């Protein structure tokens, strides 16, 4: 282990520096920080207007509505992940770092989740209250979002990495990312709906956890490979 101490320390330093930098950028650009959150709020608040203001009706759709909105909000914020770095050349510097690219991409993804996913998780109970989500499903909602939103960021990162070099991407990002993230939506929304029925939730959590483990271990590798192609 001691022989590895040197390079490990520098990988960790680079990891920390990259995360710190991305957080710094995100906190400076308040708009980017607030946009997904406002979007989340607006979409959820449209359901009572569009569907029905009947509490029973809303209770039925609450789980799905919050989850769909969270997914859309996460899609909206994805663009910030590599776009600016690609345009100003920082991405090339990142790719030419002697550090393992896996960790550098992971650092960026974690920073992105902290500023786009975590606020959604924290705001969710408030919006769930608006939709008359049964009280016993709140913790499930928070927990599934906590497990699920990092997966959205990690899988989304692959799509952004693939499309960052394209001039006009339009829908292509959604076409790439949505199929990857739909399982998270299905399991997450189902878990929240089941929570109010008193069904055991072990399997849902296990599946979400498995998805998180899968995306944590593989998605940064895919993103790294995609970034290399994009700068080529």
């Amino acid at each position, binding site marked *: 282990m001691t022989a590895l101490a040197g390079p490990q320390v520098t990988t960790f330093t*680079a990891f920390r520096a990259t995360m710190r*930098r991305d957080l710094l950028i995100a906190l400076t650009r308040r708009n980017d920080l607030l946009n997904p959150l406002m979007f989340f709020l607006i979409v959820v608040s449209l359901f009572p207007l569009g569907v029905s203001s009947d509490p029973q009706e809303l209770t039925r759709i609450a789980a799905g509505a919050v989850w769909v909105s969270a997914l859309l909000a996460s899609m909206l914020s994805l663009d910030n992940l590599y776009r600016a770095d690609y345009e100003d050349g920082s991405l*090339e*510097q990142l790719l030419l770092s002697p550090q393992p690219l896996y960790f550098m991409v992971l650092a960026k993804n974690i920073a992105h989740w902290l500023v786009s996913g975590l606020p959604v998780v924290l705001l969710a109970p408030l919006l769930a209250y608006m939709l008359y989500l049964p009280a016993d499903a709140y913790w499930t909602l928070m927990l599934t979002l906590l497990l699920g939103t990092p997966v959205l960021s990690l899988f989304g990162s692959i799509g952004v990495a693939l499309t960052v070099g394209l001039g006009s991407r339009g829908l292509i990002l959604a076409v790439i990312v949505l199929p990857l993230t739909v399982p998270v939506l299905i399991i997450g929304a189902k878990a929240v709906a089941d929570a109010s029925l008193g069904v055991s939730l072990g399997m849902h959590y296990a599946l979400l956890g498995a998805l998180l483990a899968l995306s944590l271990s593989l998605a940064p590798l895919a993103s790294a490979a995609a970034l290399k192609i994009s700068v*080529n």
Partner: protein
Amino acid sequence: MSDSHSHNPDASGAAPLLRARALFCERDERVLFSGLDFDLQAGDLMQVQGSNGSGKTTLLRILCGLNGSYEGELYWRGVPIEEDREGFLASLLYLGHRVGVNKILTARENLRWSCALHSPVTDSDIETALARVGLTGYADVICRNMSAGQQQRVSLARLLLSPATLWVLDEPFTTLDVHGVKTLESLLAEHVQAGGAVLVTTHHPLAVPCTLRRLNLDTRRANNS
């Protein structure tokens, strides 16, 4: 003429820092260069020349590993680059067209990050480097509020902060003023005199107090066809 590839690179007793053999690159069905061979020794300053679109940037990006669409062989200290990519990247500093300076961050924050990718530096190192490139007092200025030339200087400060042996610089002179050009020229000379190597593309006539090698992609193409 075309020395065999197994030939021992023994001219100076050691393998050259960077060796390119039979590089071939084609873009949009147009051959940019083919059969390109060159060696870069420690202490070499090589200027890559050629008209617009002759493939200078492409060549530099191929050498750094940013562009993978080429044929041929590249060696770093006698070892194929793909076998020791990390070792190569640790000795490489690349400054491209896009300077790699985030406009939202300050000069200090930019440098702190880009240096942390290679080797961490202290705040006083950063200030010394910025002073050398003529940005005294600009450490905490947000880069959006700087001119293009000043942003270029921020990225040049990396040259002073990096322990890299090989500098690959793509048009580093474009936005610099007269003083900036002088500073950069002396930086290049100091680096090669200290045993480093530099590959640079520029249309600017380099005035450096050391030997300057030239690699002209236009004449090579003319000779080949």
